[in-house]
């Protein structure tokens, strides 16, 4: 592909390997890219477009390829191990029978790595570890976002139910809340569930 310059003598490959991140999620890719740069890996490229993926990778000619496991295009990369492929340098998956803990951790985190044959093992290890921690950080961030969204939704439901109680039972805001909370405790339910039943009931009785 013409978007990527393929001319690269890269005399300093060992000091600063070229890393390609293949991820359709631009935020996660940015988080990983930033982490890699902070760790001193300056030659990082992001591929977010899966069309003609192999051609894009060959044009980049990376030393290390990182790909997220949610990406169906991972199977395309398996083709790089074939003898009859049209590629300049042999590429292997990061597999080391002696280090299954590291593979397990990366699969758990949702990322996989492919390296050019002959690349030093200690160096890939530091990249993988960084990848795992950034992927996990991203997952935590997403969880948090999800929780915040849910909490906001719940608060809206509780506020609506409170309003209904205040109107129909002439309670103060505090009294309405206390009533819902004690009902929830008695029935071993969450306040939001009680609030939802109040809203449903009031809609039925309209």
């Amino acid at each position, binding site marked *: 592909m013409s978007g990527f310059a393929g001319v690269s003598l890269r005399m300093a490959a060992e000091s600063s390997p070229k890393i390609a991140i293949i991820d359709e999620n631009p935020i996660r890719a940015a988080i990983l890219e930033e982490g890699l740069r902070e760790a001193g890996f300056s030659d990082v490229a992001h591929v977010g477009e*899966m069309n003609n993926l192999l051609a894009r990778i060959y044009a980049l000619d990376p030393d290390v390829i990182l790909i997220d496991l949610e990406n169906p295009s*991972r199977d*395309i990369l*398996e*083709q790089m*191990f074939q003898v009859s492929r049209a590629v300049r340098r042999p590429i292997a*998956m990061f*597999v080391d029978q002696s280090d299954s803990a590291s593979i397990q951790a990366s699969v758990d985190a949702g990322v996989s790595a492919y390296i050019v044959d002959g690349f030093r093992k200690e160096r890939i290890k530091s990249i993988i570890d960084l990848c795992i921690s950034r992927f996990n950080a991203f997952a935590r961030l997403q969880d948090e976002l999800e929780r915040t969204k849910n909490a906001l939704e719940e608060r809206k439901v509780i506020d609506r139910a409170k309003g209904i109680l205040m109107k129909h039972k002439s309670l103060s805001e505090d009294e309405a809340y206390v009533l819902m909370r004690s009902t929830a405790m008695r029935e071993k339910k969450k306040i939001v569930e009680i609030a939802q039943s109040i809203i449903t009931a009031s809609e039925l009785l309209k």
Partner: protein
Amino acid sequence: MTGRAQGTLMPLRIGFIPLVDAAALLVAVDKGFTREEGLDVTLIREVSWSNVRDKLNLGLFDAAHLLAPVAIASSLGLGHVKVPIVAPFNLGLNGNAITVSPALHAAIMGAVEGDPLDPLATAKALKRVVEARRRSGAEPLVFGMTFPFSTHNYQLRFWMAAGGVDPDEDVRLVVLPPPYMVDSLANRHVDAFCVGAPWNSVAVDLGIGHILHFVSDILARAAEKVLAVRQPWADKHGEALAGLIRAHHRAATFIEAPEHRAEAAAILAKAEYIGVEAGVIQRTLDGRLKVSPGGEVRSSERYLLVGRDGAARPDPVQAAWLYAQMVRWGQAPLSDQSLQVAMAVFRPDLYDAATGTSPPMQNSVADGVGAFAGGPFDPADIAAHLGSFPIRRQD
């Protein structure tokens, strides 16, 4: 039926790819057959064969719906970590098709001499098309398939090579995830592909592809997907594995009964399983496919076999055939030891013990494979067999 006490279900995590040939697994779980065997199965839908393989190998899955050649490649340590895999149940025979773009279809039909359903005739026609393109300076044709270690890869290669087309020199074979096949054909990134259901039918329905061949035209019986477990897991959990095999056997029998087809198709169509229209799935199960955008329909008894005609019983001869293809195309060296390992992945003994069926199951294909070219297949003499093919990567 179950040796386990009430309330002590064994939890199992099983990975699958949303394809029709996961039918026996999906129906076994959905209809509660696995539960009746004391197994509490959680199904995990995956997006790539690499993921399925890695998660099975690492023990994140107890079992998986897996490409038969991947089970063999894992056991031989080809392309990845060496993990011995056992396949005690064949989830499907055949089921793939070769779909070509309207332009390539017209070109092949224009060059074909004889019956266009005869794969030798179409392969020779492909050869003429390839030569004409070369003379006119056109780019080589691109064929999509699903994985380097896949029946799709071997079926495409076997077919075109019989007509004199070298799959590595004369055309380009590229891996594409099945859900991307149709788009790639529409966008002309590929000229043809070999893939399982429902993707061929989807391309035909959209008017952008013609089904040129069912793969059963190329090979009468090809082991397509297997139920795969790690060897140490099979050794340790013999009883659970037997229960799993029985539940699959029951599901396969259920699916093959014509009066259950509609129900089976409706189960498979669910969003959490395959998530396409039930009608498209039933066409596949019935082996009655629309093959051209014009509406032409073709039926085959052999399109996809889920259990009938002894299909579910793993046949080591088919494992040997797949290994022979790995050798032919330079993925594996030829050795007796590797052949033994490959054949031992397929475990009819575990199948027989669990289901109580008695070997040998009769099937209608003399050498167990039924390839359209190259003479009968003999696992005892792979070297001579491969030697008879002029186009090969083997040294």
